[in-house]
């Protein structure tokens, strides 16, 4: 027996999942289903699309219409699904490499269109599936198997990247801050437009070990201590913000949604059909 939430929204026979002990992805995946449950969405009308990587294995465990695509392309596949069936609630689960490196172009353009898709980026700052290479969110100076002398890349702020590209909802929470994370995913789904929720995960196996971040508990404690709510941060000095990162809702606005705008074109020709 497992919890009601798991029984109701998971393909329990596929569990336990493939993620490493302490991997934050399970926490975030659970939060996604909790948000869906809180909203009372019809399982038959939810489609969860993923790309390739650790995060992208999540939909396989989830009892919805699920689509595990190619690396980086989840949003492009999801755009096709959403265009074809706008009544479906389309949710994309992606990782930092999947969404912001190989899939970066699809991310900014889905955001620009403001198509009603909610993207949850499981950001663990590393390529886990391939064994610990640096990703677009690996902090500068950190170690990875492909950055043995320290990462010289600068990292992306995925939530603000999406917001700048046109997403109408953008937020960030962590695998520690689960109630906030769940609320943001709910708000993202509620937003009739492109929403991005960046969920900071923990990778004890590769990122954590390589960078001597201690146990998974140490990493969770770091999330607890380093995350500063965007509202609280307004009162802090740059010195006080040193080594911290922001969580919270960064953008929440209403703008014309893509499939609705296309529907207007279709309506124009209704009489002729």
């Amino acid at each position: 027996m497992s919890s009601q939430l798991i029984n109701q929204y998971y393909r329990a026979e596929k569990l336990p999942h493939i993620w490493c002990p302490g991997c934050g992805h399970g926490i975030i995946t659970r939060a996604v289903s909790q948000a869906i449950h809180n909203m009372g969405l019809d399982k038959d009308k939810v489609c969860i699309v993923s790309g390739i990587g650790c995060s992208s294995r999540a939909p396989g465990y989830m009892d919805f219409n699920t689509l595990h695509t190619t690396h980086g392309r989840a949003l492009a596949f999801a755009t096709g699904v959403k265009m074809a069936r706008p009544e479906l609630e389309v949710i994309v689960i992606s990782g930092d490499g999947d969404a912001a490196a190989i899939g970066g172009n699809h991310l900014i353009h889905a955001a620009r269109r403001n198509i009603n898709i909610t993207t949850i980026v499981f950001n663990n700052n590393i390529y886990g599936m391939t064994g610990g290479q640096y990703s677009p969110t690996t902090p500068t100076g950190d170690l990875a198997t492909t950055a043995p002398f320290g990462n010289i890349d600068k990292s992306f702020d995925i939530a603000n990247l999406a917001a700048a590209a046109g997403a109408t909802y953008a937020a960030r929470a962590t695998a520690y801050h689960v109630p906030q994370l769940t609320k943001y995913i709910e708000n993202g789904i509620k937003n009739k437009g492109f929403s991005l929720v960046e969920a900071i995960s923990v990778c004890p196996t590769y990122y954590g070990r390589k960078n001597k971040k201690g146990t998974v508990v140490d990493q969770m404690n770091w999330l607890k201590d380093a995350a500063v709510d965007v509202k609280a941060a307004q009162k802090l000095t740059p010195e006080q913000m040193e080594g911290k990162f922001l969580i919270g809702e960064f953008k929440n606005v209403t703008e014309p949604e893509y499939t609705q705008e296309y529907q207007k074109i279709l309506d124009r020709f209704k009489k002729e059909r």
Partner: protein
Amino acid sequence: MSKGKENLKLKVKKEWCKGCSICVEFCPKKVLAIKGDKVEITDIEKCIKCGLCELRCPDFAIYLGGMDDEEK
């Protein structure tokens, strides 16, 4: 979930537990411990049914379940 706390009970699905100890460390009442690589409820009397362990369990292995589904 929607039930009142009095009807809930802390439960562990050991087959799914990978022993990461997140639940143990962040339990506000220190109800849990890792024994033999798996979580164990060691002091159920102190449990306040806050559900934080369930929220932060990466393996869906610990949860507040109903009294009635015990044997299922």
